[in-house]
C-alpha cells in the first residue's frame, strides 16, 4: 500500500486512488465540488487544490489538484500550506461572484455542499462590486425545480445525467461564465434517474419539487434507515418526516446495492404514504355498502366473530413485511395461507427460486453487476422493472473502456480521460425483449421478440456454450446470429452476467436464462445470474410459501369450504380476474389489513388500517435474497399499526386457540426471531437488524441536533413539549438525543458530520471515501438453497382462446401499485396505452393515439393505441398497472377492437411551475 505524507503525517492509502480520495478516506477535510465517488474526477472546479512537493528537499511545492493526481507512494503534500489555503478561498470567492445570497430562502440551505465549503475555506467578505449574472429557469416536469442562478458550474449534473445515466435531453449549453445546465427547451426531464440531480447538485439548482410544496429544512426532519418499496432491488433510502407527513426520500448509501443513486419511482413514489386514499381508521362495511369508521376494538371484535368457526384463510402479500406475512401464516395455519401472488406469478417465482438455488449459481449484487464484462438480458425490460439495476448495467458496459484506459496509463477515476480514450471500447451487452428498451443505446445487439422466442434464444445460447446440439429450432437466421454472438461474448468474458426475471411473464425465459448461466459455470469465469422479481418482498413472500395458491383460496371461498379470509396488504384486483374475485368475496367474510383504498378494502367487511413502511419496522427480502430491515420513520396517524400487530391483536380477540399461535409476538424482533426459528431459509433474517432496547442515552437519534420547534409545532394543542413517542422496536429514538454511532452499518438515520451538513458527509461514515459503510453493508444474504422444497407450482398456461394474446409490459412510473398513489408519480406516468403491431392496427382500423378496446372475462378497458413495428403480430402489449379492472395473465387471449368513443384523457396539467 502506498504511503503518502499530508502536512507531515504519514498515511497508508489504497493503491490506485487519487489524492482527494486518499485524503478524504483518512477523514481529512479537503473541499471539493466536481469530484464524486461514482462520477470520478474531471478537474473542473479546482477546489481541491493542495501543495505537492517534489521530494524531501522541496520546501516550495507546487499547487496541484488533488482529484487529478494519483496517490503514488511517497507523495508529499500539504492541505494547510498558505498557497493552497489561499487558492481554495479564491475558488470560493470566484464561485460566489455570481452565486445569489439567497441561502435563507433556498431549499438547499442547511444541507448545501457549497455552504459547507464556503465556511470551510474561510471566504467571508464579498469584494466583488459588480452585478450578479441571472438566467431564465426551465420547467423540468413535476419532479424537479430549476434555479440556474445558483449554479456554480461544477458539471456534476450533466455528467450524472448524460454520462452516468445515459439521459439525452439534458446538457451543458453556452460557454464562459454563462454556462447553462438544462434542456434545449422547457419540458419534463425524460430520465427516470433525474431525481438524483437533487443530491448530485452541490447547491440548490435542482431541488425536489414535491418536497418544496411543504418544505422542511434537513435539520428539522425526523429520519430513519429505510428500504425502497418500489421494486425488488431493495435500494436503501432515507425518508424524512415532519408534522406527521413523509416529506421526502433521499438516498441512503449502500455500497453493494444502490450506491449513491435511486430511481425516481423510489424517490418520489414513497409519496403514497401521504396520499388522500390512505386508510387511517378501522372500519366496518354496512350492508348498504357504506363504510363506517369504528374504534379499533369494535372492528377487531367483528373480525374475531367472523373467525369463530375456524374456517379462515389468509392471503399474504409480496409487498408486506416478512413479519406481517409470517404472522398471518401463523394465525391461519400454513395450509390455509397463500402468499398472495397471482397464480402465474407464483409459477414465475418458483422458476426464479429454482434457478437461484441451482448449483454454482452466484446471484450478484448491483456492485457485481457493475463489474460484469459481458451481459445477456433475456426477456426483462430492466429499465422499467428494476431501474436501479438498469443503471448498474449502464456502468457494466464501461468495463472494456476501463481496461483500455489502464493500458494507456489513464487512472480509472480520471473520468473524462477514460471516456475520451474509451469511446471505441464497450463491454458487450446483448438484449432480447418484447419491445425496444432504454438500454438499446448501450447494447451490442438488441432483438425484439415475444417471450417464447426469447426462451428459445436463451436455450440456443446455452446449447452453443455447452457445445450440445440443441433441438431443431425455428429461430430465424438473424436470431441464430444473435445467439452465436451472445454465446461468443459470454464465453470470452471473465465475469459474464445473465439477467432475466418475472417481467416477461414466462417461466421458460427464466429457465433459459438459468440454462445459460449453468452452461457458463465452471472454469475460470465468475458467472452471475440475476433474476429480477417484481415487488419489494416478492422473494421473501415466496420463500415463506403457503399451502394454497390464490386460485385454490378463491375456490375454497367460493365453494364455502372456508368462510372467512384475511387479506394482508394485497390489492387482489391485480392478482385475479374480477369475476372470480367477486364470486369469492361475496360469500365470505373479508377482513382486510391494508394502508390504501382500493378494490379489496371496498369489498371488505372489516378494514384494519395498516402502517406503511414509513410507519413501521419490518424486513423485506430483495432479489438477491438479502433480508433488509426498514425502520419506522414516524408513528402513523390515527389507528394505523403494523399489520403484524393488528394480526396479533386480532388473534387475542379471537380467543385462546388463535392467541396461542401468535404467542410472544410483542415486538417486531419477536416475530422475526420466530420466523428465523421456524424456517431454515430465514435462519439469519433476525441478524439484519441490531438489537433493540438500548438505554435512552445510547440510542441513535432520528433527529439532528439542530432539530427545532419541538414545542412550537404542537403549541396550538399544548404549550408543553410532548413526550417523544417511545420506540420499543429498534435502537433508534424519536429524539435528537443520543449518539450517532461511529460505525453505523445499517443505523444511519441521517448523514451529518461537523462541517459537513450536506449528503457529502456520508464519506465520514465510510471505511474509505466511496467504499462500504463502516459497520458493514446493511442486510443479510439468506441461503436460498435452504428453501423448503414446497409443492412445485406450475402455473397453467393461460387460455389463448381469443384472437389476440396479451404480452405483459411494464412502465417505470405506472406499474408499481403503491407509487401510483403519489401525485408526482401519477403526473410522470404516461396515459394508459396498449401496443399493437402495425399490420394488426391497420387491420382493426386503429391509428396511433386512437382508442383501443381490450376485452377479457367480461371486463373492457379503453386505452390509447401505440403502434410499434417491433411488436409481434397477433399480440397486444398491455402495461401492468394500466389496465384498471382488467386482470391480465401473460399470454391469455383477449379481444381487441377499435374504440371510436375513446377520449384521450387530458394530461392533467392545469398549471406549470
Amino acid at each position, binding site marked *: 500500500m502506498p504511503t503518502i505524507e499530508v502536512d507531515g503525517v504519514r498515511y497508508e492509502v489504497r493503491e490506485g486512488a487519487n489524492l482527494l480520495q486518499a485524503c478524504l478516506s483518512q477523514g481529512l477535510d479537503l473541499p471539493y465540488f466536481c469530484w464524486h465517488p461514482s462520477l470520478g474526477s474531471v478537474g473542473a472546479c479546482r477546489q481541491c487544490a493542495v501543495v505537492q512537493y517534489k521530494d524531501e528537499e522541496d520546501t516550495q511545492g507546487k499547487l496541484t489538484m488533488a482529484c487529478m493526481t494519483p496517490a503514488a507512494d511517497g507523495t508529499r503534500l500539504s492541505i494547510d500550506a498558505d498557497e493552497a489555503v489561499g*487558492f481554495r478561498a479564491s475558488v470560493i470567492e470566484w464561485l460566489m461572484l455570481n452565486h445569489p445570497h439567497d441561502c435563507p430562502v433556498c431549499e438547499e440551505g442547511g444541507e448545501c455542499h457549497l455552504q459547507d465549503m464556503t465556511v470551510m475555506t474561510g471566504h467571508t467578505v464579498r469584494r466583488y462590486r459588480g452585478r450578479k449574472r441571472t438566467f431564465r429557469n426551465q420547467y423540468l416536469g413535476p419532479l424537479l425545480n430549476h434555479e440556474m442562478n445558483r449554479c456554480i458550474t461544477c458539471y456534476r449534473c450533466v455528467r450524472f445525467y448524460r454520462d452516468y445515466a445515459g439521459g439525452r435531453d439534458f446538457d451543458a449549453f453556452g*460557454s464562459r461564465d454563462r454556462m447553462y445546465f438544462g434542456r434545449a427547451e422547457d419540458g419534463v426531464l425524460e430520465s427516470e434517474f433525474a431525481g438524483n440531480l437533487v443530491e448530485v447538485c452541490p447547491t440548490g439548482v435542482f431541488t425536489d419539487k414535491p418536497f418544496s410544496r411543504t418544505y422542511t429544512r434537513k435539520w428539522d426532519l425526523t429520519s430513519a434507515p429505510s428500504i425502497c418499496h418500489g421494486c425488488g432491488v431493495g435500494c436503501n433510502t432515507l425518508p424524512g418526516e415532519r408534522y406527521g407527513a413523509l416529506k421526502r426520500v433521499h438516498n441512503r448509501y449502500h455500497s453493494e446495492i444502490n450506491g449513491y443513486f435511486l430511481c425516481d419511482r423510489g424517490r418520489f413514489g414513497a409519496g403514497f404514504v401521504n396520499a388522500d386514499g390512505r386508510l387511517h381508521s378501522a372500519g366496518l362495511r354496512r350492508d348498504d355498502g357504506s363504510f363506517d369508521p369504528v374504534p379499533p376494538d369494535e372492528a377487531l371484535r367483528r373480525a374475531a366473530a367472523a373467525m369463530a368457526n375456524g374456517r379462515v384463510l389468509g392471503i399474504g402479500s409480496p409487498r408486506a413485511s416478512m413479519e406481517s406475512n409470517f404472522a398471518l401464516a401463523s394465525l391461519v395455519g400454513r395450509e390455509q395461507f397463500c402468499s398472495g401472488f397471482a397464480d402465474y406469478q407464483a409459477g414465475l417465482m418458483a422458476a426464479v427460486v429454482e434457478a437461484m438455488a441451482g448449483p454454482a449459481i452466484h446471484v450478484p449484487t448491483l456492485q457485481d453487476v457493475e463489474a460484469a464484462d459481458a451481459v445477456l438480458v433475456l426477456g426483462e425490460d430492466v429499465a422499467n422493472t428494476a431501474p436501479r439495476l438498469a443503471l448498474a448495467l449502464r456502468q457494466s458496459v464501461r468495463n472494456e473502456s476501463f481496461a483500455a484506459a489502464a493500458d494507456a496509463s489513464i487512472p480509472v477515476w480520471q473520468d473524462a480521460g477514460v471516456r475520451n480514450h474509451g469511446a471505441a471500447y464497450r463491454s458487450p451487452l446483448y438484449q432480447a425483449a418484447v419491445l425496444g428498451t432504454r438500454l438499446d443505446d448501450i447494447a451490442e445487439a438488441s432483438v425484439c421478440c415475444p417471450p417464447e422466442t426469447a426462451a428459445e434464444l436463451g436455450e440456443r445460447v446455452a446449447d452453443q456454450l455447452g457445445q450440445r446440439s440443441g433441438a431443431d429450432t425455428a429461430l430465424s437466421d438473424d436470431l441464430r446470429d444473435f445467439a452465436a454472438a451472445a454465446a461468443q461474448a459470454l464465453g470470452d468474458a471473465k465475469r459474464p452476467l445473465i439477467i432475466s426475471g418475472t417481467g416477461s411473464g414466462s417461466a421458460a425465459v427464466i429457465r433459459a436464462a438459468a440454462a445459460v448461466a449453468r452452461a457458463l459455470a465452471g472454469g475460470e469465469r465468475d458467472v452471475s445470474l440475476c433474476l429480477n422479481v417484481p415487488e419489494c418482498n416478492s422473494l421473501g413472500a415466496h420463500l415463506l410459501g403457503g399451502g394454497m395458491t390464490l386460485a385454490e383460496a378463491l375456490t375454497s371461498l367460493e365453494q364455502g369450504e372456508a368462510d372467512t379470509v384475511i387479506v394482508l396488504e394485497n390489492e387482489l384486483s391485480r392478482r385475479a380476474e374480477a369475476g372470480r374475485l367477486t364470486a369469492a368475496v361475496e360469500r365470505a367474510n373479508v377482513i382486510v389489513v391494508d394502508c390504501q383504498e382500493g378494490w379489496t378494502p371496498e369489498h371488505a367487511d372489516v378494514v384494519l388500517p395498516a402502517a406503511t413502511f414509513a410507519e413501521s419496522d419490518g424486513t423485506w427480502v430483495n432479489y438477491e435474497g438479502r433480508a433488509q430491515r426498514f425502520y419506522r420513520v414516524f408513528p402513523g396517524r390515527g389507528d394505523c399499526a403494523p399489520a403484524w400487530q393488528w394480526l396479533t391483536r386480532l388473534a387475542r380477540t379471537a380467543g385462546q386457540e388463535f392467541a396461542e399461535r401468535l404467542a410472544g409476538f410483542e415486538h417486531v424482533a419477536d416475530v422475526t426471531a420466530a420466523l428465523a426459528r421456524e424456517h431454515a431459509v430465514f435462519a439469519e433474517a433476525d441478524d439484519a437488524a441490531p438489537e433493540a432496547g438500548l438505554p435512552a442515552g445510547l440510542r441513535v437519534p432520528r433527529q439532528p441536533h439542530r432539530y427545532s420547534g419541538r414545542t412550537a409545532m404542537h403549541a396550538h394543542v399544548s404549550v408543553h413539549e410532548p413526550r417523544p413517542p417511545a420506540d420499543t422496536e429498534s435502537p433508534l429514538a424519536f429524539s435528537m438525543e443520543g449518539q450517532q454511532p461511529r460505525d453505523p452499518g445499517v443505523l444511519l438515520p441521517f448523514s451529518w458530520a461537523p462541517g459537513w451538513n450536506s449528503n457529502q458527509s456520508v464519506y465520514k461514515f465510510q471505511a474509505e471515501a466511496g467504499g462500504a459503510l463502516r459497520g458493514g453493508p446493511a442486510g443479510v444474504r439468506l441461503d436460498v438453497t435452504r428453501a423448503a422444497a414446497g409443492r412445485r407450482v406450475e402455473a397453467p398456461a393461460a387460455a389463448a382462446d381469443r384472437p389476440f394474446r396479451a404480452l405483459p409490459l411494464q412502465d417505470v412510473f405506472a406499474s408499481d401499485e403503491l407509487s401510483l398513489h403519489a401525485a408526482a408519480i401519477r403526473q410522470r406516468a404516461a396515459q394508459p396505452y396498449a401496443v399493437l403491431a402495425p399490420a394488426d392496427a391497420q387491420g382493426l382500423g386503429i391509428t396511433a393515439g386512437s382508442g383501443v378496446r381490450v376485452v377479457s372475462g367480461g371486463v373492457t378497458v379503453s386505452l390509447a393505441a401505440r403502434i410499434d413495428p417491433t411488436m409481434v403480430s397477433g399480440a397486444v402489449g398491455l402495461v401492468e398497472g394500466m389496465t384498471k379492472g382488467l386482470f391480465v395473465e401473460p399470454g391469455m387471449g383477449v379481444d381487441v377492437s377499435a374504440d371510436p368513443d375513446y377520449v384521450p384523457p387530458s394530461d392533467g396539467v392545469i398549471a406549470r411551475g
Partner: protein
Amino acid sequence: MTEDAENKPLSARITAAGGFVDIDAYEQGGGYQALRHAVTAMAPEDVTQTVKDANLRGRGGAGFPTGVKWSFVPMGDDAGDGVKYLICNADEMEPGTFKDRYLMENDPHLLLEGILLGAYAIQAPQAYVFMRGEYHLAARRLEEAIAAAEARGYCGKDVLGSGFSVAVGLHRSGGRYLCGEETALLNALEGRPAQPRARPPFPPASGAWGRPSIVNNVETLCNVPGIIRHGAAWYQQLGRGEDAGTKLFGASGRVRSPGLWELPMGTPIREILYDHAGGMQDGYAFRGLLPGGASTDFLVEEHLDLPMDYAAIGNAGSRLGTGTMIVVDDSVCVVDLSRNLQHFFAQESCGFCTPCRDGLPWLESVLADIEAGRGEPGDLELLDRNAHYIGVPGHTFCVHATGAMEPLASALKYFRDDFEAHIRERRCPHRQHGLRREPI
C-alpha cells in the same frame, strides 16, 4: 534555386507569383516533389526522423518539437485498427496574428503538401483542416487545392501510386478562441463543446474519437515540404540562433509599415521593429510590445535586442507565441488595453474551470472600474493576487487563463505607475483618452 527560394521556403513562391500560387505554379516551384520523394522512397518513420533532425518546433505558440510529437503515434501493429488523424490547426484566433491566413490564402498547396507528408509520416488515412470560420477566402482556396491535388493524384486513394491513401477534409470552425487549444479543437471537431480535455490521454495516443491524432499548426506543416526536400541540415542552418528554420514574423500597431515577413528564427526584435516594420509612426513613442500575440507577456525597451527565438524570449519572461507582435505606443492607455484584453479572454473562456470562467470576468470588471475612475485602494493587490492564482500553469485546467494573465501580470509590472495613477486620481489620466478608446 533562387536565393529567396533557398532562404524563404514559406513565402518565396508567393512573392514570386505576386500573390496566389496555383497548383501549376506550385509544381513549377518544386511543389509536391517532397511528397513524391517521401511516399516512393522514404519509410514513414524516416519522414518523422527527418523532421525531428531538422528541429522543427510548433509555430502555433507552444513550440513543441514536431517530429517528437509525431514519434508518439503508435505505428504498425501497435496502431490497432489503423484509424488515425492528422489534424491541421488553422483556427487562427490569436489577436494580432494573421500569418496562417497569409499562407492559406496564397499558397494552399504548400499547406496541403505539409499535411500529406504529416499524414504519411504517421500513416493517417484521414486528415482534417480545422479552420477559423471567418477565413472565407482561405477555405475556398484550400477546398480548390484539395480538389486539384486529388485530380493529380497527390491525395485521396493511392497517393502517387504508392499504396498510401489519405483523405483530406476541411472543417470550418463555429468560432471560439479555445478551438486553437488542441484538445478543445478535438472536441469541437467531434461536434462537442470546445472545452479542453484532460491529459492523459495525450492526443498522439488517443485524440479524435479516441484514436491517435496529431494536431499541428498551419505554419508548422508548411515547413515540412522544405525539410523533406532539402534535408534537416539545410533547415537547421536557416535559423540565426539556436532555433532552426525561418518564421513568419509580424508587427501590428502604430508602426510605419505593419506587416508580415519571413525571417530566420532568432532575428532580433529591434531588426523586425525598425528594419522591417519601419519603426514607430511619427508622433508616437514606443512603450512596449506583446511579442507573440495577446496571450504573451509585455516586453519593453530593454528587451529590444533580444533575438526572437523560443529560449531568449522565454528567459525574458515572455513567450515567442505566434511571433506576430502587437506594438503598444504611448497613445494607448495600458489600463484600458488590459481591460480590453481581459474582456477578450473572459469572453473566450470555455466555461470549464472556475478560475478562468469566473476569475477573468471579475478582473475585467475591476480593470473597467479602474479605467472609469472607480478604482479603489487594494485593487492592484487584488489584481496581483488573482493574476498569480489564475495565471500559474496548472492552476487552471488549460493554459487559456495562463495566457490571459501574461499581458496583465506584465502590465502590472512594467506599467504599474499607470494603474496607480488611475486609482489615485480616480480617472484615466491618459492624455489621449477619449480620442482613442480602442487600443488596437
